[in-house]
């Protein structure tokens, strides 16, 4: 018997449909159905200035906006042959790591809500608000940041930000201990999570599953270490792994990743305190400056020798490995933009890790995937 879970179901965290074939209580087959939230972001991007695409990146994944901005910016800078100042790179890494904590806290809140635990949900949302407050102090937005620009970042950190950020991450480190006390040492949590949704590393790699789901199976693949982008090569941190390959393992990996993110944030703050400087490249093509005035007639545009190029980037996003590919044909808009969403593939692998379990196990297992449908459907 086929059962539809979704598109409007508390388990889905957004608009997607999980069709499940069951025999009694046992899942025999699943058929994830995505695309309800498709907004054509790749196509809209072809008609926008490079900086204007950043407004779309925030809406691609609404819990990890800055990570997606970072992804796009790296590819765009490669395509346009721009080198950002080092201070801007550190601010971007700081933002991406704060965003990783924010995204994982959002996941934590939603995941325990799936299990029926309300107290950890409130804790997760409360502490995520601290991260949003931090973002608001320097980007001006709480969810849609529009902060990074091709060639740097929009503005420098405000006075007193580093002290405040240290205060917040210190506070969060205490909270992480509390999360473990609430969940990991709770019978209700362990009984529902241990040994569920097993996905071995070989299967995960065969399906293209990345991120915490892959690392929970013992793999040490992390793009920040394996293919260091931005300034990750100069920062010390460990790759969070677990060897259980189940829902509890994914929980452990994400909790450890948040602690490692705090470690990275502290190093970034130390560097930013010592090294003031510009946050925007001084040499930019005209249409990347602040005003986007009309270019004038096409004949003169064609006369100018604008650089062309290809840009590709891969970023360890909170959900997994995201990719962007940009073709710059010398115009003021990109010719083609393509994004790789980790969540799309992580959901699709449900065909491998869901069958064999019971219907009541679907919410914890799919909750541990960290579904963000905005990014999945784009």
């Amino acid at each position, binding site marked *: 018997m086929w059962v539809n879970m979704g598109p409007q179901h508390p388990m889905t965290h957004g608009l997607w449909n999980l069709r499940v074939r069951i025999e009694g209580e046992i899942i025999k087959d699943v058929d994830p159905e995505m695309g309800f939230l498709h907004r054509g972001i790749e196509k809209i991007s072809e008609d926008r200035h490079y900086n204007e695409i950043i407004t779309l990146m925030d809406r691609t994944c609404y819990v990890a906006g800055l990570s997606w901005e970072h992804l796009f910016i790296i590819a765009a800078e490669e395509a346009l042959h721009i080198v950002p100042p080092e201070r801007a790179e550190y601010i971007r890494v700081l933002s991406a790591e704060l965003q990783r904590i924010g995204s994982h806290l959002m996941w934590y809140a939603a995941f325990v809500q799936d299990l029926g635990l309300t107290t950890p949900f409130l804790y997760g949302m409360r502490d995520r608000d601290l991260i949003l407050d931090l973002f608001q102090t320097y980007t001006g937005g709480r969810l849609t940041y*529009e902060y990074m620009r091709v060639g740097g970042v929009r503005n420098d950190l405000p006075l007193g930000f580093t002290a405040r950020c240290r205060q917040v991450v210190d506070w969060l480190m205490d909270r992480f201990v509390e999360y473990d006390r609430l969940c990991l040492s709770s019978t209700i949590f362990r009984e529902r999570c241990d040994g569920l949704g097993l996905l071995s590393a070989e299967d995960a790699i065969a399906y293209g599953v990345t991120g915490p789901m892959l690392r929970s199976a013992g793999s040490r693949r992390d793009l920040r270490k394996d293919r260091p982008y931005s300034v990750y090569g100069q920062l010390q941190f460990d790759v969070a792994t677990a060897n259980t390959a189940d829902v509890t393992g994914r929980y452990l990996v994400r909790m450890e990743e948040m602690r490692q993110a705090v470690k990275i944030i502290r190093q970034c703050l130390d560097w930013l305190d010592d090294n003031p400087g510009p946050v925007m490249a001084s040499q930019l093509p005209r249409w990347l400056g602040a005003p986007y005035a009309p270019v004038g007639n096409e004949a003169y545009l064609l006369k100018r020798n604008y650089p062309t190029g290809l840009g590709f980037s891969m970023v360890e996003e909170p959900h997994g490995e995201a990719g962007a590919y940009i073709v710059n044909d010398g115009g003021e808009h990109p010719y083609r933009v393509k994004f790789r969403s980790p969540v799309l593939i992580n959901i699709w692998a449900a065909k491998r890790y869901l069958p064999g379990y019971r219907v009541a196990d679907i919410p914890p297992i799919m909750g541990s995937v960290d579904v963000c449908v905005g990014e999945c459907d784009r």
Partner: protein
Amino acid sequence: MAESGAQAPAPIPGTEQRPLLWVTRPLATAARQFAKSLWRPSTIIYPFERLEDPKFRGEVAVASGKPIGVGEIWDNYRGVHALNINTCISCNLCAFSCPDVCIEMVTVPGGDPKHPKKCPQIDYGKCSFCGFCSDACPEGCLSMTTRYELSVHKREDMVYSPARMFEVFKSKLPMNPIRVERPKNEDQILLDPPICIGCNACSRDCPTQCITMLDIPKPTPKPGEKLAKRIWKEPVINDSDCVRCGTCISVCPKDCLFWGTRQ
């Protein structure tokens, strides 16, 4: 089939089979947080307390050692726009920079009939609060404030006319202090002299009046040669005053102005 190839979950250190601890530990943690929240709330009582209140402004909160976790609002918050009509130069840059095309330039009283003054009108039904318009404004007259309450009863009320944004400006809310620096290799507006007919359109419409029409010598025609029909004047652009709005390019009837770098 799900079990194939995966290991059995290993016991996590510190959480051995101690059933009493499993029950009491989460309860004790929750009870401690509850006690803390009695004197250190994580929320603000919205209609009575507001984020705009000075006690919730970030700088104050840091200086006074206020517990973190309580709402706050900083000056670079991107809320409702404030427009200073008096300093607006009608350069159109905010409308050009808007990714959602929600800014329309509407005529406001104050200009002369030949060259009406135009100021931005924002449709908040479309606005995404990206702040590009405020970044692009060369005079700093369009800026985003800390006001975040936008609910209205009618859809038409979502459209903020320049006069309405001037009201916001007059309420003296903290304005966004961020100004994006311009790149040093910015293009200038160049002239293709043989095509120019000296029509004065660029100089007339320039919002900063940085274009002057200078006389150029009228060449003496050779016998049999016909001179082009034109006014013997040419625009000269003062680069330090130019805001790069491109108005001159769009009004030029002969397309003789273009972006470029002077060699």
